[in-house]
């Protein structure tokens, strides 16, 4: 869709100017200076946009098209078309900014030798475009998705782990004790008795030092 044509309209419009003020060569020089501008026409196509109809207008009003990092800014028409006028020959960069979509910047060659020739390529993946139709490479999701509540997440949380450990101690330890030799248990219990039951005060580091 990218059509770069020499703006003949300017040349034509010069004629009345010449008639009007034929004594002014200076004005002519400036005018001819502005004729080496070209027009870049393009289109932004966002899939799923156009199908919704009214939703299109609400959203595509937030799309901006930028030439050469802010040198010029333009907006989309309702049909998604945009254009930059009076662009000098050279290699330019077009960027589309739309919230929710990731667009690759596009390299556009405007050549003075063969006007009308389209040279455009996405800079992200070096894919060349036969016509200047810009489509988003991907959608952008700005928020983390909240995972739905699951028992596992609760179990995995520090508190869940605490409860889990306690349960293990409660139900598995007695089983372990049961499997042990009664003799050994008695021995261990006697040992404990001889040492004295460790009180809470002993668990505190400060208290221990005072002992």
């Amino acid at each position: 869709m990218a059509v770069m044509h020499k703006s003949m309209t300017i040349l034509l419009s010069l004629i009345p100017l010449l008639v009007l003020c034929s004594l002014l060569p200076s004005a002519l020089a400036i005018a001819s200076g502005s004729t080496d501008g070209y027009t870049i026409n393009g289109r932004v196509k966002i899939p799923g946009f156009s199908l919704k109809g009214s939703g299109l207008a609400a959203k595509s009003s937030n799309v901006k098209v930028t030439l050469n990092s802010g040198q010029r800014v333009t907006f989309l028409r309702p049909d998604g078309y945009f254009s930059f006028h009076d662009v000098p020959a050279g290699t330019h960069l077009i960027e589309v900014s739309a919230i929710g979509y990731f667009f690759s910047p596009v390299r556009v060659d405007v050549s003075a030798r063969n006007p009308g020739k389209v040279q455009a390529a996405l800079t992200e993946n070096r894919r060349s475009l036969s016509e200047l139709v810009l489509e988003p490479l991907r959608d952008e999701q700005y928020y983390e998705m909240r995972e739905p509540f699951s028992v596992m997440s609760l179990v995995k949380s520090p508190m869940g782990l605490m409860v889990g450990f306690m349960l293990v101690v409660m139900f598995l330890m007695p089983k372990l004790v049961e499997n042990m030799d009664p003799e050994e248990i008695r021995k261990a219990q006697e040992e404990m008795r001889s040492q004295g039951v460790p009180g809470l005060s002993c668990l505190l580091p400060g208290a221990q030092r005072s002992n």
Partner: protein
Amino acid sequence: MAIRAYLLFCIILFSSYYTTFALYEDQVGLMDWHQQYIGKVKKAVFQTQKVGRKRVVVSTEENAISALDLRHGEIFWRQMLGVNDAIDEIDIAMGKYVVTLSSGGSVLRAWNLPDGQMVWESFLFGSKPSRSLLLTPTNFGADKDNVILVYGNGYLHAVSSIDGDILWKKGLAQSGIDIQHLVHPEESDTIYALGIRDTSQFEAYAISVRNGELLKHSSMELPGGFSGDLSLPTSDKAVVLDSSGSILVSISFVGGEIKFQKVQISGLLQGYSGAAELLPSKLAGMVAVKIDRSLLFVKVKDEGTLEVVDTVPHVEAVSDSLSFAEGQTAFGLIRQDGGKLQHTVKSSNDWKSHFLKESVEVDQQRGLVHKVFMNNYVRTDRTYGFRALIVMEDHSLLLLQQGAVVWNREDALASIIDVTTSELPVQKDGVSVAKVELNLFEWLKGHLLKLKATLMLATPDDVAAVQRIRLQSAEKSKMTRDHNGFRKLLIVLTRAGKLFALHTGDGRIVWSRLLNAFRKSETCENPRGLKLHQWQVPHHHALNENPSVLVVGTCGHNSDASGILSFVDAYKGEELNYLAPVHSIKQVIPLPFTDSTEQRLHLIVDAEGYSHLYPRTPEALDIFQKELGNIYWYSVDINNNLLKGHVVKKNCKDEIADGYCFESSDLWSVIFPSDSEKIIATSTRKLSEVVHTQAKVNTDQDVLYKYISKNLLFLATVTPKAISDIGSVTPEDSWLFVYLVDTITGRVLHRMSHHGCQGPVHAVSSENWIVYHYFNLRAHRYEMSVVEIYDQSRADNKDVLKLVLGKHNLSAPVSSYSRPEVVTKSQSYFFTHSVKTVAVTSTAKGITSKQLLIGTIGDQVLALDKRFLDPRRTVNPTQAEKEEGIIPLTDTLPIMPQAYVTHALKVEGLRSIITTPAKLESTTLVFAYGVDLFFTRLAPSKTYDSLTDDFNYALLLLTIIALVIAIFVTWIWSERKDLQEKWR
């Protein structure tokens, strides 16, 4: 030390996570806020005829077009045009399109009135710059109703308002002509283009609307010439001042015949003296002449004679005429006396009567009235009411209706120049500052609701209640300091010369002040703010003092214009003192010294190279004299491609100035040859930045010492051809050079060149690294490069034996005079977007890893981990390197949508990003501003040192209760079992 070690451990623990920053959708607004503004209103058009929502469409100095709700002042829609696309004219066509003329009359756009969607766009080419005029006639007759007439760049265009097609164009670009008005007499097929040629010739072109044919051209010369612009009271009469400024000339041009009538102003007004000025307001059948501060209303009669109607003193603004039912026309005028506005609506036909006279009190801090726009409405009793939209000196917008200010917008905040932060007062005992202190019961209730939400037991009402509690937490908007340092004041200086203090918790305005020093006066014609500095930051012994800020400004656009210094209390917003006009201000250097009241010493360098010390106290002078000869500064002269180092030497000679003036001498200079290089960007480290450790341990147990110097300057130059925009230079002609310069000695530590690259360069420096963004013409993509600098002279300290024997040089003082042996490491990556600004996060102790904050062309702020810009990245990192957190090398920096700190919002017209550390080490506060404001807090390595807001206390409590119950149950069980054992 133990805490630091712990923190480091935590960082290592958390840095293994890949995700950088992510937000859940229901967390929006919890710690961030976003405010939308439009800027100072230039033009306003009301749309109130139709039933439905009443609105006003405005164009602003920030190049915004916006539709505002007339009832509340909210933005319906807003479109921001490009930076070079200034809006000249705005109007409504066919009752459904907003038409804007911009870029000096060369772009005409139509926007859908209900939703702001662009409908069509037309480019109007022309030959030479001229005034831009827009005319949307409404009564051409049925078939011609949709023609818009535009004059711009020397051409008159007729544009169809349905699709923007150019119907015809007509050159009116004679040399020296200045077309000032397009007139369409009622019910006719011709339009008139009126102008002045060579300041003395009045020209009138009659042009057919159908085809642009020039029907008649008449001109007449006034001997002596005109001054100022034409004023057009009726469609066939104009009034203008002659070149002496004391004679009013009324011009009538009925049927192509031009007649002049001259009237002396002194003949109209007794005792007239001083300069007269014709107001641009369009009044029906009248012109307004401003003499001193009074307005002279002059009626233009049918024969072209002038007659004085009235003189009104102290008029600040006059609206255009408004025609409403039965051909009545009225206009509004505003008289101001301090904070009291008197709004009068006069009838154009009958001066004696007035439709409305009301007076309103407005805040003194809004200054003078600058503009007024009028609109009428029909009251319920079928009489006419009037409302006025007022633009004030501080750029705020007020709607006046029925003797009251219905709403106001603080649109000065769209044009922030500089930002600084201030701590809030310390909470004192017994003084409750929060409006609502939450009691324990409510706190618990909130957490129980949250628990219900996590367990999916909550009803939608509960969920809404939870969200409300989270958003309106009284905690975050308190007016006192908090432990985490999240609550601060953002002090912002705006282009209007108004200073605002915003609360970081909810973004509300705590105070605002229109600084006296920045108001227009005879000694200071064009005051504008430049910088904000923290003047006094009390802590320790001066805690009773309020902090204050220094506002630096200048009176004009030249470098030698006199300066303005103003000192403002940061808590109350009172202007403590101001000095204006003082010497010119070229550079403000905050010195690392404070006096006994914690006022920071500042050195202000003027255009002649003299430096002046502030504050002007003997104590400050004492402190400074001790350090004399030790104070260095540098200057970058972009125009002359010069980098210079200076040292403060001695007092100025007595005949020049007082004891606070010092002379400096040049130490060194670096001159870049202007035919091969041009300076385009510089960057230095933030002075307040804290670096935690100088050493960096490699995977192979090797230690690298960072070269950390406050005097390191990054400088970028390009070849002269590469200075223009992208698209106008070939890769062969374009080079980008970067330099690292020590600003004390002028030594170039490192130089690098990028062939085929060009600006604009955006650079940011921190610790021992610099990241810069530029354009690579060969690949036609943007690139970001990182340079890290390491100190080689300390590299041999790795030897443990030497360390033990004390033969290391770690404690040797660092001097700029010793020749540093530095090595640099560098790497480049592609980056997708254009960049508007780059910043880096900063934390209290510098332990937390850093993130780059990149303001993209789409006005979003992207957080990018510094780990992605690490010169040690390789394609296949070893296992050890992977464990250290080195990411495999890719050619492009990743853009993860979740890493946008602005999430789904845009900071329209983004200009800068400010980061400031919170007290909590993990957290940094981020403020991004442009036309919109956005504030959030970031934790680049996650909040490893505090529980998140999401932490569920109720769940913790529940678990503890469950555990306690379990303890009792098991205790009972064990008792029973014991008993059974014993019975056995």
